């Protein structure tokens, strides 16, 4: 395998990172609203978001990407692969992050909200100043764990013709007939990104466990 092929793989890696970043940022923003809706006092919002989360957690990501790309094309909405995949990952991530953060929000002791209420803080201040900082801290290890899953999950974008790292690998492998070498390198590239993140997540988890003595 030559430099040219390796650079092609790196370009695939770039897309993988970009895709994970879009899914994580888009999913993070949408997931925040899902988590807030899920923990709100409004029964309808709670029910709707509960359903939303169940659907995305109960079906494979592959199928979700399929539906967004081919399904929407069937009803006449032809999306660019890039846009379709970005939407698919955002929806997927928003459901998972929403659920992770819901757990974090609910783990913040009730007394915190009560103290904030007694100080006459309004909903937005209670949420932004008091609850969310604590909820995010509680949820951080799980959030990082999900990010690692999301990075690996980007390989599924290949099915709609998107050339991220895994697909770049198969293209090169078909060209130079050295699948072991090529996929070995692809594996190392995934590992080089995901492993430090996993370590970081585990480190935070240990730190919080100590902090809450």
């Amino acid at each position, binding site marked *: 395998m030559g430099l040219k092929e390796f650079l092609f793989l790196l370009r695939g890696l770039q897309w993988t990172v970009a895709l994970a970043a879009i899914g994580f940022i888009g999913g993070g923003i949408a997931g925040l609203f899902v988590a807030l809706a899920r923990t709100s006092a409004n029964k309808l919002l709670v029910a709707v978001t509960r359903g939303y989360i169940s659907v995305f957690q109960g079906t494979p990501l592959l199928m979700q990407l399929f539906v967004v790309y081919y399904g929407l094309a069937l009803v006449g909405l032809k999306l660019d692969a890039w846009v379709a995949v970005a939407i698919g990952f955002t929806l997927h991530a928003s459901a998972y992050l929403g659920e992770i953060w819901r757990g974090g929000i609910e783990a913040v002791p009730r007394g*915190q909200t009560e*103290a904030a209420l007694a*100080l006459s803080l*309004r909903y937005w*201040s209670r949420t932004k100043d*008091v609850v969310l900082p*604590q909820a995010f801290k509680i949820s951080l290890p799980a959030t990082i764990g999900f990010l690692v899953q999301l990075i690996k999950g980007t390989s599924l974008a290949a099915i709609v013709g998107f050339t991220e790292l895994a697909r770049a690998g198969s293209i090169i492998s078909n060209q130079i007939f050295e699948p072991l070498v090529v996929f070995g390198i692809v594996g190392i590239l995934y590992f080089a990104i995901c492993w430090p993140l996993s370590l970081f997540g585990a480190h935070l988890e240990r730190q919080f466990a100590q902090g809450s003595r």
Partner: protein
Amino acid sequence: MNNANPSTSAEPMIVFRHVEKWYGSFKALTDINLEVRTGEKIVLCGPSGSGKSTLIRCINHLEPYQKGELLVEGLKVGEDPKIIDAVRREVGMVFQQFNLFPHMTVLENCILAPMRTRKTPREAAVATARRLLDRVKILDQADKYPAQLSGGQQQRVAIARALCMEPKAMLFDEPTSALDPEMVKEVLDTMISLAEEGMTMICVTHEMGFARQVADRVIFMAKGEIIEEAPPEQFFRNPQHKRTQQFLGEILSRH
């Protein structure tokens, strides 16, 4: 000092009229009638589960009530969220578990609400917070996080945090029950000095020494009802109801 207390005026600040509260099908408050005048200090006691917390939490609407009416400075606490907001700005609360915000320093805990709800500029909020932290003798800890403080220190911060809103009344829900015995006094001293300055106070506590020293009236609750109500002298020397006598016997033998 009860009736001679010069800061006590005739004007009622908090009024319960036939207030009743249910948790689901469980009746937690039955026909509560109570008037608290400006500057008055009330001590509320009674066995566990008698509804003491529920009663004071109705005042700032941490708990809704279902029947009767509850007025704070003439405004009915109930449906109107604006009134609830206004009442919460005027009535501070101190909890058994302190409930300080753990991710903020002592100073940040104190300036948050004035900045957010009173729109006090940061500098003014900091100045007020420092003055009140000094008053509860904890100014030197202003930049620490709650977890770095002892329970007694945390509770004094919680009192200062509530005072930063410059409330007209303060509610205390067993403020010393979660403290190690050696820290109880520092918190009670803070409350006593607050009382001496004329703050209107309703304190759920079993600290009978505190009740004797500062209360204008002691109220005894059992099973969601106010059973007895008297100035501390009379309450301790000559309790009228059997339930009160029994309760006082238990409390006093414990100390």
